[in-house]
């Protein structure tokens, strides 16, 4: 138990130390010290306006996660079952995904307007394809002998899907979902930074324009903590299934 905690604690301490050193090296005003940042964080967490912005982001993030998870798994299963379709789709998806999506954001804004739906769409653009690819590949790589065994044990195709295919692909789907969740958050935040009047992403850009570095760092830190927590939760979920 101690050893599990020791590692992360050491990493955090080293990070703080490096931060402090950087703060001392860089001109004072442009990189606030850890202490100043934590003080600012305390102020923010007591500020109702911060929570209003956070709620905006959380809403867009939640919808984007749900839609890209459901959509990504459904699309991945579909493409994985139709082998040929999967083989055609894979390079297209990979190329599509490697496009710098920010350049497409004006198009998204044109379609969805300045509201929350544009940010949701942008989150989905980031999160959907990785999960689709993970799910599809998990199905394509499924050992044929699993399905053959299911057939000789007299399982119906529905039972095979539920009892064999699903548990067999689950580890990769969860990995894909973990990636998808982080990327959704990224997409939503970028969306807010570029074109929005609310949300945490907007808060960061706005603070940056004011030169308010402690706020920028404090918000970034809070977002990072939430992202890490979400990732840790999914990781724990993944581990809990393992023997």
């Amino acid at each position, binding site marked *: 138990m101690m050893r599990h905690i020791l590692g992360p604690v050491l990493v955090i301490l080293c990070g703080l130390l490096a931060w402090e050193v950087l703060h001392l090296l860089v001109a004072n005003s442009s990189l606030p010290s850890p202490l100043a940042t934590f003080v600012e964080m305390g102020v923010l967490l007591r500020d109702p306006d911060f929570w209003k912005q956070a709620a905006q982001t959380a809403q867009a993030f939640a919808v984007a996660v749900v839609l890209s998870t459901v959509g990504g798994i459904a699309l991945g299963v579909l493409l994985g079952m139709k082998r040929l379709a999967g083989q055609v789709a894979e390079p297209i998806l990979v190329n599509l995904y490697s496009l710098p999506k920010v350049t497409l954001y004006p198009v998204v804004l044109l379609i969805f307007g300045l509201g929350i739906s544009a940010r949701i769409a942008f989150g989905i653009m980031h999160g959907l394809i990785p999960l689709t690819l993970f799910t599809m590949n998990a199905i394509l790589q499924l050992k044929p002998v699993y399905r053959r065994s299911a*057939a*000789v044990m007299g*399982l119906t195709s529905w039972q095979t899907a539920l009892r064999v295919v699903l*548990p067999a692909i689950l580890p990769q789907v969860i990995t894909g979902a973990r990636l998808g969740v982080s990327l959704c958050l990224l997409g939503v935040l970028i969306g807010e930074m570029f074109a929005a009047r609310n949300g945490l992403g907007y808060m960061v850009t706005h603070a940056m324009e004011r030169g308010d570095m402690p706020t920028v760092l404090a918000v970034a830190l809070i977002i990072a903590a939430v992202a890490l927590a979400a990732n840790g939760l999914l990781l724990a979920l993944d581990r809990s299934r393992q*023997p």
Partner: protein
Amino acid sequence: MSAAALAQVPVVAPDDHHARLRGVTRIFGPRNGTGVHALGPVDLDLRRGEFFSVVGPSGCGKSTLLDVLAGLSFPTAGTAEFEGKPITGVPAGVGVVFQEDASFPWLSVEDNVAFGLRRSGVDGAEIARRVDYALGFMGLKAFAKAYPAQLSGGMRQRVCIARTLVMQPRLILLDEPFGALDQQTRLLMGDELLRLWRETSATVLLITHALDEAAMLSDRVGVMSARPGLFIDVLDTGWPRDRDSRIVSHPRFGELTAHLWEKLRAESLKHLRGS
């Protein structure tokens, strides 16, 4: 000597057959002559309760033959029947053990073994009884709660055999089940297989590339030609029913193995030269 020039031996026993193939041919891909002619035409009768092994060079259609009997693949031509009924899907009463590790890594050993039974409508008490018996029979009791990842390849194959055993199959098909195991483990697994065969009085069809395994375990051994696979010889071993791996020291074991090799040498050479 080409496969066509060999006199094909029909492996036919009209009296008491359990499974029967007549003119079974399998061609993969287009039938206009460009497809892969994998098997046949093959005639084969498996007698009820016998231990029949098939040996042949790799790629000669042994797995294809097994798939036809298991109802996993349908012949391009010819007929296949099990217990007098044509095989139109996986027949009830047929169990299969594959070469690859087919144990499910997300289930414990006992859940793996119970897997098929739980989907077949057998009641809980009966499932528990059969699983317990199969675990004991295969020496897996101590590993009931373990997961496949914690077991050796040999133990995992035992799990797969136990999983087949609990379904109480009347015909057990095994496709090179010990192919991935070392020699000593293979001999011991062979003994277990003989024990299982005697205990269940099932008919066993074992596909193997190990001639000694075929000579030691079987009542009859069918020798297949290079692709397209045909039976070019059938050997009666004449072993008593209660045999085990110690018969390897019997002089006839050497004779049988030598005979099988003589039949197979030319065919294996063909495969090696890639014809």
